[in-house]
């Protein structure tokens, strides 16, 4: 098992970082050149936020991302990554990264909301990028869950599963389950494309469509399954496992009781 995981990680460190560096370099260019990204800038920061964020960044992030967030061999440049990226990666506990691996794992969040905001302000000040959405933009009650469901199935379900229960990607990477993720983080994931997730810019899925998707996710998350326990929403595999272990187990217990002699 150990050898397995080492084997899995070893080539990836180099390749993934190289590709990440390539992508972010390209990403800055692409993001900067697309005007509609900047329109979403709704949450604003003060100069003080930027200054405090810079200090936090230097203390916690610069060892990998470099002073001035220009990137290093170990981590990509964050110039143009945008406030949304920081809010998502740090606010969901993925950054700072605990260890090198196929992808950043979710851990307990290391910073207060204020500190995350300050770091986001700092990174946003380095170059134009996706901004943190306002509360109105991610208000699930305003969206149309049925339309969101259609968009979710076409654009998201193949990785995240139709019930948002998550799924596997290649070589140890995976698309996480989405239940429990905040509306803001869902939105930010779509606009920034964290890890290997593609970017769903506003030119692809409009902010209103994104709101519909959030409405869909929050609807299915809050209502639960009408049929009882959902068994992880993993489909026929968990159902098959359940009937073999629990269903057949109970039946066998009954057959043993039924054919045993009464005392």
């Amino acid at each position, binding site marked *: 098992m150990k050898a*397995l*995981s080492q*084997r*899995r990680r070893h080539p990836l460190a180099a390749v993934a970082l190289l590709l990440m560096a390539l992508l972010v370099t390209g990403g800055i260019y692409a993001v900067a050149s697309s005007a509609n990204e900047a329109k979403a800038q709704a949450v604003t920061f003060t100069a003080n936020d930027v200054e405090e964020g810079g200090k936090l960044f230097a203390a916690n992030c610069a060892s990998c991302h470099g002073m001035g967030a220009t990137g290093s061999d170990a981590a990509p440049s964050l110039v143009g990554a945008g406030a949304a990226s920081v809010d998502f990666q740090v606010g969901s506990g993925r950054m700072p990264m605990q260890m090198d691996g196929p992808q950043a794992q979710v851990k307990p969040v290391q910073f207060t909301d204020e500190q995350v905001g300050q770091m986001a302000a700092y990174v946003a000040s380095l170059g134009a990028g996706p901004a943190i959405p306002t509360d109105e933009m991610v208000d699930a009650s305003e969206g149309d*869950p*049925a*339309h969101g*469901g*259609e968009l979710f*199935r*076409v654009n998201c*379900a*193949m*990785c*995240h*599963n*139709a*019930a948002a*229960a*998550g*799924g*596997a*990607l*290649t*070589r*140890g990477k*995976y*698309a996480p389950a989405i239940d429990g993720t905040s509306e803001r983080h869902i939105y930010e994931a779509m606009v920034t494309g964290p890890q290997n997730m593609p970017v769903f810019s506003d030119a692809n899925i409009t902010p209103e469509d994104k709101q519909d998707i959030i409405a869909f996710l929050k*609807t*299915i998350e809050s209502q639960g*399954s*009408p*049929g*009882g*326990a*959902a*068994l992880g*929403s*993993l*489909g*026929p*595999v*968990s*159902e*098959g*496992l*359940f*009937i*073999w272990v*629990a*269903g*057949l187990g*109970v*039946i*066998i217990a009954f*057959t*043993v009781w*039924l*054919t*045993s002699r009464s005392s």
Partner: protein
Amino acid sequence: MSSSTATQPYVPKTRVGKVTDYVDSRVGGSGIVKEFGRKIFPDHWTFMFGEVALYTFVILLISGTFLTFFYDPSMAETHYEGSYLPLRGVEMSVAYASSLDISFDIRGGLFMRQVHHWSALLFVASVAVHMLRVFFTGAFRRPREFNWVVGCVLLILSLAAGFTGYSLPDDLLSGNGLRIIDGVMKAIPVVGTYLSFFLFGGEFPGTAIIGRLYVLHILLIPAVILLMIGIHLFMVVLHKHSQFPGPGRTNTNVVGYPVGPVYAAKAGGFFFIVFGVLAAISAAFTINPIWNYGPYDPSPVSAGTQPDWYIGWVDGALRLMPGTLGPNFDFEFMIPFPWGDNALSLNVLFPALVPATIIFALMFTWPWIEAWITKDKREHHLLDRPRNAPTRTAIGVAGVVFYCIQWAAASSDLIATHFLVSLNDVLYVLRFLVIFGPVIAFMVTRRIALALQRKDREIALHGRETGRIVRLPHGEFIEVHEPVDDYKLYKLVSFNSPEVSIPRADANGKVGLVDKVHGRVSRFFFEDRVAPVTPRELEESHHDHHGEVAGAQDREAITSR
């Protein structure tokens, strides 16, 4: 179930007697009562799985009939207007919309859907376990070979019933399942494309397939299953049930409880128990949440798209097969013909057909294969304990492992995400295991079976370990063994242990090829064997099993009390 006539002695004869007499004098029921009323059935918990299969099938008929009243197998386009909010207004087929209506707008509809689907899973599972019981205890041997074949046919029919039903809701999950069936079908050489066009009524997905599967699912397949169940049960009655060897049980008798009242009560009550268990599961556990998947559309797909467990192994085989070897070789061959190239997709055809062919071919022919190897043409009404037929048991376990590895491969993505390993590594490991796993399982199982047999011998010869340590007068410590009683002993020693049959030369002094092969196979099967204890051996072990060791007499005095 069938207990109304059998429980007759328990109702007052005066009134019911008249009614039964009225019926009896017209249909001759007393003959049936005489034949079946006190028929003996042996009791063992492993004999109940066939009943589970029968009862789940009855529950499937009941719940399925309810569902047909509300389900509409049409692929016409509609917009959902039911009460499930996240799909309201979405374009879908009438079949899917009616499945949603059953789930959300018909009281008890969701419950019946869940009962139907959970029963279907349990139905196939109990058929499988029942067949494993029959295989591992040797109940397929003469005179029951034909009934074993009927059982194999029933297994295939239950798979067909399951798959056709899985597709009916016309949701995204089952639609992608049909997509895969279409892809596999198209890989069949020469006729594949035509088969696909005939099945789907044109190009995939078309508008015909759901209606066609529906007719198969509710009419043809259940009818044939019922017919086969009739034949199956007829032969069970004809042969009488087999039984495990033991005191009082011989090859020419059957020991158990009479149908009326005990067996009928137990079997009848068991129907209600199976129904109750399925109802409890359906009350509390979701199955096939079709509302999650959305309507079928060829563009989207959900992560974790799998078939139901019983088709899973074929899906797993499809996943295990590499499509390419190295950068320059792939398993799709273009065969040049005078009229042009034709494509042969072995990367699809091989995994879809070969493992299934191996398993089903061996399954259907096994009674005759084994009879040829043992050259044993006698009737067998006494079962084998699995350990007493080590090679058969090992082959069975190897088959189960072969099946289960493919089954596991069908959930490779979920294994990867739930155990935090790489999807690719999971497949590499399973590819290794699907080939070597059965071999390892065979060797390990045979060793375990032989070891258990040796343990039985040990207990038969020297008795049960009591855990009581005694110091003998001359200082030696021994553990006291307690001899088992005659009944227990008989259980341990009453079995057949075939020996290697050495091929004999014919008149010309030559050994024919078939005989040679038979000799080889026989050696493979029976070379390692543990013979049952004989009375003489038991006698010897009681008197001088430890030779001239000092204190043997003391020990003897204690162990045999």
